[in-house]
Structures are given as structure tokens and as C-alpha cells.
């Protein structure tokens, strides 16, 4: 049994088995908790049984093992654990939320588990086929999850927007893959060495098209236009999932591809990625200043954050960069980003009531005095996103600084400094709104007279959501004060 579990493919297979079992079970047992329980079991199994088993089993699975399609190494295992954890958190947060939308929210959980399957496959991809397969499984599940509140106009609009734009991005990506294949004759993630001048140019064009698709999925500027609308329209827990697992999976595959195929060896591509990073850091932070909706603020903030993370990628995959440190930075950063983003959306989910998302800043007015725990968590998350010490966000930002300094990417590091400096303002604005008592003078002319808080001050907060959120808040502080455990875990998987 253990030998079977230790097989590198066992996690993927087990997840698929769970999904099928869930499909059967929800047909047989009409109980609203069946799908919820199955999802937790599937993801918990992944996290608690599979990941340790694979870690303890074959330490160096040969790349050939999966016909070159997937590479289940420490890197992939790390993301498996991260996505399973994020999936569990999303599930717990979604429980009370989707229960209000539908008496039988079975399909929501099935879609969620399928999306996690797509994400873990993407993170392990070492070939365009598995890469595309993973991304599409993930995206298609997400379209339906975004549109899950069928009655609402905004979710449908968001889902349609995401479907059309994401589909366009996928096809561009597919075209890029074809062009790369034309130049190099291979679909595996490997360096395109020994190409003639003409083929090299064609390969660059292919890579550029592929990158357009990837950058779109990561919502990096200038391909970020969809992000605020989709974030705002989607239900809060789905936005949390989209912001974390979906972006994390694409980034994981992107980093693996960029390093394996050595795409930054091309000056044009390297320059382009650097420009995208700077543009994202600046545009994300500047545009976030103008928002009145917390979801849109977080959307723009995520654009900036993935921009910061791009520094780590360029450091890891760039010529002369320190690959190990860059990969380590990515893993630590994504962990921190997951925790703080999930915490922020967790608070939002907890405050959202039926048909009324706690989205507008005014809904958070005086939260400190009404819901001190939730407000404290959101404060921690906001400070963490701003990169203030004591929080995991600072450790993450410190890592990016370190990777940038090591790779002497000074222009990018400066953009990081400037972006972070701008960013403080809007994160503080969220905090200030929470400590302001309703009816007081606004922090600036941006906020008009306070509206009654969404759901009213007495709206019931689901206990489950609040508990999960509080745990995430503690994690933000704990990892910020003593990050050594996560650093050792990451280095044990990737090598120091």
C-alpha cells in the first residue's frame, strides 16, 4: 500500500479517484454535506498522506517516468501541498457561503476539487501537453465556479468576461506552442539549443506568444484588464481561489518552463519580461489607489504582487542569476502570498451576506469596533501585503529583495521599492476605514458619506469562516516572526 502511495503519480490518481467517487456519492446520497466532506477528504488525503509518502518514497523520480510529461520532484510536491492547503481553506470558507446560494451545492465542490487537480498537474508539467491540460482543467472549472451564483448579474458577467478573454489567451498560447514546435521540433520543456538564426527568431516569436497567454493568466500588466472586473464579480471564496491557486499554478509552470527552456537567454524576451515586471509593479499599485472596492484594490494589489514575484523568476531563470535562490524565493513568496490573500478574502467572505458582497470600502467602516477579530486579521493581511515587518509579507518581500540583489537586478529592485512605497497608501486606507467610526470625516475625499454596513452590524458571521480566517491571521504573524520552518521546508525540497 505504501509503495503504491509512494508512486509519483499516486497523488494525481487519488485526486481523480476521489472526484469520480464524489460524483457517484452525490448522486446516491442527497445530503448537502457529502460533497463538502468528500472535498475535504480528497484534499486532506493529498496533503496528509500523499505528500509525505511521495517525499519519503522515491526521492528522485526519473523525468522519463511519466513519458516526459510530468516531473514530480520536490518543486511539484511543494506546490501540491500548497494547493491542497489553499484548497482546504477555500472549501472551509465556501461552506457557509455557498450554502446560502443553493441547498445542494454539490457541483461547486466537485468543480473546486477538479480545479485543484488541474493546478497540481500544471505545477508538475514538464511538457506543453501536460501544461495545457492542467491549465485548461483549472480554467474551465473556474469559469463555472465564478458563475456559480446564477441569480446575480455580476458573477455571470465576470464569468463571461473571463471565459472569452481566457479562451483567447489560451489560443494565443497554443499558437505559440505550435510555433515553438515548428522551430525546435519538441514540445518538452527543454532548451532550444543549436537553432539557426532564422529558427531562433521563429522560436522567439513562439515564446513571445506563449508568454502573452501566461502573462494574461497571471494578470500581469499590460494583460491585466480583466482582473478587477473578474475579482469583483466572482463570489469572494472563488476570488480567493482564483487569486491564489490559479495564479500559483500558472506561475509554477511558468518558472519551470522559463528555467528549463532558458528563454531568458534571448535578450528580447528578458527585456520584455523585465518591462512587464516594472509595468505591473507600478501600474498595479497606482491603479489600486483609485479604487473604492476592496476586491478591486486586492485585484490591483495582486497584479503588483505577481510583478514582484517576476523579479524572483528573472533571478532564477536569468543568465547569471542564482537559480536556487530564485526558486526558493518563489516558493517562499507564494506561500506568504497565499496565506495573506486567503486571509483577506476570508474576512471578506465572512462579512458577505446573502446577495451582498462585503466589497465596498464603506462596508468595513468601524469594523474594528464591531468585529475586532476579523478586523485584526484584515489589518494583519493588509500590513502583510504592504510588506511591513512582523508579517509573512515582509519575509516574502525580503526574499525578493535578496534575489534581486543577488542577481544585480537593480532596476527591478528599485521598481519594487517605488511600488511598495505607493502601495502603503491604499493598504493603510483599508486599515483606517476599519478604525474609523461610521459618520466620521473620511480619510480623503474619495469616500462619500458612509452607507450602512453590508448586512448590518448584527449580521451573523459564520463561525467556521471566522475560525479559518483567524488561523490564517495567526499564520501571517507566526511566519513573519519566525520564518525558519518554512524556509527549511523549502530548502529541503529545492536544495539550499
Amino acid at each position, binding site marked *: 500500500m505504501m509503495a503504491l502511495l509512494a508512486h509519483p503519480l499516486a497523488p494525481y490518481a487519488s485526486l481523480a479517484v476521489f472526484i469520480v467517487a464524489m460524483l457517484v456519492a452525490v448522486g446516491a446520497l442527497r445530503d448537502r454535506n457529502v460533497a463538502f466532506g468528500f472535498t475535504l477528504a480528497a484534499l486532506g488525503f493529498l496533503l496528509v498522506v500523499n505528500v509525505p509518502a511521495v517525499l519519503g518514497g522515491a526521492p528522485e523520480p526519473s523525468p522519463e517516468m511519466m513519458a516526459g510529461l510530468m516531473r514530480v520532484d520536490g518543486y511539484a510536491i511543494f506546490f501540491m501541498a500548497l494547493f491542497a492547503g489553499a484548497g482546504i481553506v477555500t472549501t472551509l470558507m465556501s461552506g457557509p457561503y455557498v450554502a446560502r446560494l443553493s441547498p445542494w451545492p454539490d457541483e461547486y465542490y466537485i468543480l473546486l476539487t477538479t480545479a485543484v487537480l488541474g493546478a497540481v498537474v500544471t505545477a508538475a508539467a514538464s511538457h506543453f501537453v501536460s501544461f495545457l491540460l492542467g491549465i485548461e482543467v483549472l480554467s474551465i472549472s473556474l469559469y463555472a465556479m465564478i458563475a456559480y451564483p446564477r441569480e446575480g448579474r455580476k458573477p455571470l458577467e465576470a464569468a463571461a468576461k473571463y471565459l472569452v478573454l481566457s479562451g483567447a489567451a489560451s489560443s494565443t498560447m497554443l499558437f505559440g506552442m505550435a510555433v515553438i514546435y515548428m522551430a525546435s521540433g519538441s514540445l518538452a520543456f527543454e532548451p532550444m539549443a543549436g537553432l539557426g538564426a532564422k529558427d531562433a527568431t521563429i522560436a522567439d516569436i513562439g515564446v513571445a506568444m506563449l508568454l502573452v497567454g501566461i502573462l494574461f493568466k497571471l494578470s500581469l500588466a499590460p494583460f491585466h484588464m480583466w482582473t478587477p472586473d473578474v475579482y469583483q464579480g466572482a463570489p469572494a471564496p472563488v476570488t480567493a481561489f482564483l487569486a491564489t491557486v490559479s495564479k500559483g499554478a500558472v506561475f509554477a509552470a511558468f518558472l519551470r518552463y522559463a528555467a528549463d527552456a532558458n528563454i531568458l537567454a534571448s535578450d528580447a524576451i528578458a527585456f520584455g519580461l523585465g518591462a512587464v515586471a516594472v509595468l505591473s509593479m507600478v501600474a498595479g499599485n497606482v491603479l489600486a489607489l483609485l479604487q473604492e472596492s476592496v476586491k478591486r484594490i486586492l485585484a490591483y494589489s495582486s497584479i503588483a504582487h505577481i510583478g514582484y514575484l517576476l523579479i524572483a523568476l528573472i533571478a532564477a531563470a536569468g543568465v547569471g542569476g542564482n537559480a536556487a535562490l530564485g526558486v526558493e524565493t518563489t516558493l517562499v513568496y507564494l506561500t506568504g502570498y497565499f496565506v495573506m490573500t486567503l486571509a483577506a478574502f476570508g474576512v471578506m467572505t465572512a462579512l458577505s451576506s446573502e446577495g451582498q458582497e462585503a466589497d465596498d470600502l464603506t462596508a468595513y467602516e468601524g469594523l474594528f469596533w464591531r468585529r475586532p477579530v476579523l478586523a485584526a486579521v484584515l489589518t494583519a493581511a493588509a500590513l502583510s501585503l504592504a510588506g511591513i515587518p512582523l508579517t509573512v509579507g515582509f519575509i516574502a518581500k525580503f526574499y525578493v529583495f535578496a534575489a534581486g540583489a543577488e542577481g544585480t537586478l537593480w532596476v527591478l529592485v528599485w521598481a519594487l521599492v517605488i511600488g511598495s512605497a505607493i502601495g502603503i497608501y491604499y493598504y493603510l486606507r483599508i486599515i*483606517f476605514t476599519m478604525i*474609523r467610526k461610521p459618520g466620521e470625516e*473620511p480619510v480623503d475625499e474619495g469616500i462619500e458619506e458612509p452607507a450602512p454596513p453590508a448586512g448590518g452590524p448584527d449580521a451573523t458571521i459564520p463561525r467556521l469562516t471566522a475560525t479559518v480566517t483567524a488561523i490564517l491571521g495567526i499564520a501571517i504573524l507566526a511566519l513573519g516572526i519566525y520564518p525558519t520552518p518554512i524556509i527549511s521546508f523549502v530548502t529541503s525540497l529545492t536544495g539550499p
Partner: protein
Amino acid sequence: MSLLAIILAMLAAGVVAWASERFHANAPRYVSLLAFIVGLVWAAAEWLMGADPRGLYAVQFIEWIPRFGINVTLSMDGLSMMMVALTMFLGIIAVVSSWDEIEERSGFFQFNILWVMAGVVGVFTAMDLFLFFFFWEVMLIPMYFLIAIWGHEARAHAAMKFFLFTQVSGLLMLFAILALVWAHHSASGEITFAYHRLLDAEIDSRIGFWLMLGFFAAFATKLPAVPVHTWLPDAHTQAPTAGSVILAGILLKTGAYGLIRFAVPLFPEASEAFATPAMVLGAASVLYGGLMAYSQSDFKRLVAYSSIAHMGFILLGVYAFNEWGMQGAIVTMIAHGFSTAALFMMAGALQHRLHTREMSKMGGLWVRAPRMGVMTLFFVVASVGMPGLGNFIGEFLALLGAFQKNVPLTVAAAVGIVVAAVYGLSLMQRSFQGEPNPDVATMRDFGGREMSVMVLMMIGLIWVGVYPQPVLDMAAPFIDAMLAPMATLPDIPLAEATITEAGLHR
């Protein structure tokens, strides 16, 4: 007790104070007061026990993030010891001065005070650059809350401005810290944030200059020096009394401390090259702060601007690169901590009684509250630099040091002392003397609680003013060690004569 234990105890006391709110409205105040008294007693005990041969009163080392060579390295030499003791003392003042001012959520209020002060103690004792930056930022967030929640009418704006200035300049310092560490790493192959290792780092002088500027930006903003001082009048004026006491009394000193402990020793050559611009900023702060103080009609704002002027002397003294200048800066830090804390406490007391800070609505208050009048007079006189009180020693030594380095700037700064007398006496005149304001029929005078802390600060100022030798002795080992590599002063004989006159000889 170890240093880390003290810091953690203060953090824990903050949590306890917050939680104790539900039992009694006064409970958080007592918890907080007790914590600071214990801290002060601890500092006094460490002082009495004396330093070890290295001149350290307490040392601690714990591994923290080995991946980057980051450790919890805390140590307390004479300089740190004085600053820590001042922190604890002003903590007591802050708690007492806000005893009946803060009625709302006093638990969370005391929590924030204790956390700010814990961060400050960390800043004064951290000997690891990462840890230093960590504490540097830790003291920021509770201070933001103190201003944003309990501040006066324009608190939102003031709190935001305070946070942005400090945070953005802090980012520049973080950038400089990392660049320094990586420059050291590429030269020696070792990643470390340890202060004593980085002191020996071989840095290309051109890069060193830019890195020094990163540190200088953060410290000059905190100090603050012209032209990055604009956050200070707003933050001070809007903060609650305890917040102003902490801000002026101790938070500004972290900037001065940073210059003395980090910016100058880490980059001696670059700092020397930057001495003239820094001294220009210092002299400009003295004059500008003084002139702006004179033109204020708001009691608290006047005191706030006077802080900028006093901090200018520190900048002059530090960048004079000699023992007198440095000593003058350190004495000024301590004396200014007492005098300004007292004046802000007075401003808070007036606002609490009159509900205004406008001096046009005061006048002749001496008749109504003679004890407050006497106290104000004493601290105003101290603040303008009356011989025999602490501020005089500090400013005199700073000017003496600066005189060796740059005569015109010293002359300009000395003019600032005249300006100080003008704004100081005008403050006294407009608020406590002159025709009694008919709108203020009665005003409660200081009671025993307020008088006792005022007298404590008086004693402190007189002590530093009459017998500053203990302060000078405590700071001397660090200053000597720091100045040793740049001991190239040409005019030793003259200088020695001057020292003897100033009573600086050891």
C-alpha cells in the same frame, strides 16, 4: 533578565493591558505603569551591576533565520543603556500624562504604547541590521494607531503622513541594508547581517556613498531634518498627549541614535564626505525650526517646530566627527527627551482643560494655575538653553564640536539659540502671562500626580545640566571606538584645552 525577555515582557504586558480593560477602566493604566517601572528598575540594576570588560551591560544571541545569517543579536553598551533607561522613564511619563485623557478603549491604548516602546527598546539594542530594521518598523504601526484612533481633529491625515514618510524612508534603508549585505557577500562570500561583521565590510567608496545616503534618508526623516520634516508638525499636533510625549521624547531619538550607531560607523568615509551637506541641513533645521516655531499660534505646534530646531543641533554635532560634537548630540538627545516631553505634557494638560491649543485663547493663565505656570517657565527656559540645565550642555558641546569643523555653519546655528529664546519667551508670554483671558475664568491647576512627574523631569534636567559627566562617561567608549579610525584632527592642543574647560576630561 535578558534583553529579549524585557522586550517580550513589554509585548506581553501590552496584551495583558488590553485584556485587563474588561475588569476595570484603570487596570490597563496600572499594568502599563508597572511594566515601565519594572523596566526602569531593571535598567538601573544593570547599570549598578556595571559593564563587562567589553563595555556591555547585557548581551544576547539567538539564532533566528540562519538561511541569511540573521540572528537575534541584542547588546547594550553605555549609549544603548542610557537610551533604554530614557525610554522606560518616558514610558512612565506617557502613561501618567494620559491617565485621565484617554477614556475610550484605554486597554488598546496602553497596548499600543507598550508595543511602541518595546520596538524602541529593540531599536536601541539590536546589533543585527535585519533585526534593527525589524524593530524600526515594529514601532511604527502602534504609533500609527495611537495617532489615527486617539488623535485630534485632523488625525487621519497626520497618521497617514507619518506612516508614509517613515515607511518610505525605511524602504530606502532596507534597500541600503541589503545592498550592503550583498556587497559584503560578494567580497567575502559570507552572508551576514551582524553589525560588527559589516563594520569591517570592504565597500567600494562610490557605492558606499549611496548606501550611506539610504541610511541617512531614514534617520534624517525620523530625526527629522529639513526638508523631510513636514510629517512632524502634523503628527505631533494631532497625536494624543502620550503619543506626542513618546514621539518627541523617544522616537525622534531613534533617528539620532541610528546616525550615531549605524550611518556613521558603517560608512565612515562616505559620512565624512557628506559632512558638510549634513551640517548644512542641521543648521537649516535649527534656523527654520526656530523661525517656524515663532510663527505658530498653536501651543503644541510651536513645541513641535522647536523639536526640529533642537534636532538640528544633533545633526551638527554628529557630523562634526569629533568627541565634543558626538557627546553634545547624545546629551541633547537626553535633555530634549525631558524638556520636550514636559512641554508636550503641558500642551496636553492645557488642551484637556481649555479644549484648545490656540494661544490666542489663552493668556494670563499664571493667575489661574500658578503651578502650571512655574513648570512651563522652567521647561521653556530649559528648552531655550539656559546654562545649568541639560539642553545647554548638549547644544554647547554640539556647537563646540561643529566649530572645529565648519565655522560659518556653527555661527548660523548659534544664531538659532537666539531665535529659540524669542519663540520660547513668546510662548510663555502668550499663554501664561499678559492680561488674563476673560474666557478662562477658572482652570484646574496641576495636582500631585502631574507635579510629581514634572519634578522628576526637572531633576533629570538639572542633573544633566550641572553634572553631565556620568552621561559623557557612559557614551565615551563607543564614541572613542567609532572615532578611532578617523582620528585625524589637526588641532589637538587647542582641543584639549577646550575639553578641560568644558569639564570633559576623563
